């Protein structure tokens, strides 16, 4: 007969503040519509009806960086596009997370030349890397679940 049981009968739940904050942050992440190349097509397929991203609350891809909190870099980042991606990242309000989707965003991919930036982690800190060329929509969903696990472990003190 502990406190939890007694409170549970009365309709109360005990938890920590961190857990509640992290839980609410994972439940509806809004991604920014930043599809660059081939991986964007697989991202759109993941958004379709077969592999539904709407069950994560993500069917709405916000076009404006001010209203989103997840940046999925899907596709290769060229030299001309690199400062634009950095500016989009800067315009997003805190808390924000970055997923590098595909081989080109993680490490430069098939292209090892003057025109492609070798991995978007040269421009911004990345939370989850998803491998594949292009990764299947199920791999993208797995990456999002991995991001949830990462968010659930965040501490309030450490972030500030």
């Amino acid at each position, binding site marked *: 007969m502990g406190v939890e049981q007694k409170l549970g009968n009365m309709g109360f739940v005990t938890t920590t503040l961190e857990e509640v904050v992290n839980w609410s942050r994972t439940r509806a992440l809004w991604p920014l519509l930043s599809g660059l190349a081939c991986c964007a097509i697989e991202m759109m397929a993941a958004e379709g009806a077969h592999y539904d991203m709407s069950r994560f609350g993500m069917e709405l891809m916000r076009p404006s960086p001010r209203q989103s909190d997840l940046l999925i870099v899907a596709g290769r980042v060229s030299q001309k*596009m690199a400062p634009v991606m950095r500016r989009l990242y800067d315009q997003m309000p805190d808390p924000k997370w970055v997923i590098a989707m595909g081989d080109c965003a993680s490490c430069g991919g098939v292209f090892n030349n*003057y025109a492609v930036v070798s991995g978007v982690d040269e421009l911004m800190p990345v939370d989850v890397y998803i491998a594949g060329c292009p990764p299947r929509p199920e791999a993208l969903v797995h990456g999002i679940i991995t991001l949830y696990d990462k968010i659930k472990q965040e501490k309030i003190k450490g972030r500030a």
Partner: protein
Amino acid sequence: MTQLEEVAVDQIKHLVSERAVQGETMLLNMGPQHPSTHGVLRLLLELDGETIVNCIPDIGYLHTGIEKNMESKNYTQVEVMTDRLDYLNTVGNNLAYSMAIEKLVDLDVPYRAQSIRVILAELQRISSHLIWLGTTGLDVAAMSTFLYCFREREAILDILEMVSGQRMMTTYIRPGGVWRDVPVEFEAAVRDFIKTFPRRIDEYEALLTRNPLFLDRTFGIGTISSDVAVNFGVTGPSLRATGVDWDLRKNRPYCGYDQYDFEVPTRSEGDVYARYIVRIDEMRQSLRIVEQALDKMPIGPVRSNNHKYIPPPRSEIGVSMEALIHHFKLWTEGFSTPKGAIYEAVESPRGELGVYIVSDGSPKPYRIHWRTPSFDNLQALPYMAKGLLVADLVAIIGSIDIVLGDVDR
């Protein structure tokens, strides 16, 4: 690298009208990250209120240096990079490259492989037009077509995955034929698709073709006449919508297209609505071709047996010295091609996709140039958009069907 360069009015003074320099008209940036530009395309608009006075496209945000990268790989490794050019027509890119290599080294292709190539190329054309329909519908605010089209596309991607193991970047069509024979379930899956798809196209047409809202947004918008279109280098459905009957599958048949009975749809108005009708009709004709190719597919080998260029089968390597030597040469150095330069083109869903290879006798290409259709189609955009509203510009960009991987290479 992380400093964004600001383009002042002085740098583009020669492109905009006088009124922009004086401040009468507004310069608006429709930036690389935009929901309606179908990729990373930047447009500088000079607006007088809501009317467009000048539209200046700025490309290069997806430049990958593919042409230079291909000069440092041998011919087999180059094919892997060809998928990533026009990423909605990956089978077509492989087909163009394989046909160019076959022309260069004078290689034969067995009939069964040609039928399989035609089936996959036409399925890829249907899949590309479905994505076009979904995203263009999304631009003119028809969201349900987006979800339906992606559902159809899953059926086609299942067929591609069954055949090659990959959904998009298949690299299945290789010089000399195709990589390996199709599995047993292929025919049943394609026939199932042929049975269910025509009703679906009727559903999409019922949603859009006579819808007064759709007609208001697309009829009479973005017209271009046929001489101007030919002068701009426009090819593909955008050209056929202006009245010019030019299709490489009929005029310069390849891969056995002359044995199939199909029509090439054309319209004469040259506006957004005409391009929509042409592409919907093309999907139906592609289905006809797939059915005929499946019926006429002969039994036989699927790859040429000229082992100077094609790897010998695994079973032969243990018993034949020649097969072992060929295998060794192909895996270490790659095959060499005769000296010279050729050009070969196929009809992609966007127009004429051509590849120009200059060979100097070594196993690596000396220079490869890709004639991509979206590069020339996009140049007609400022001409089509003059004097229209910004909302019409969105519909026009959707209708020319550009893929930025094609434009920027």
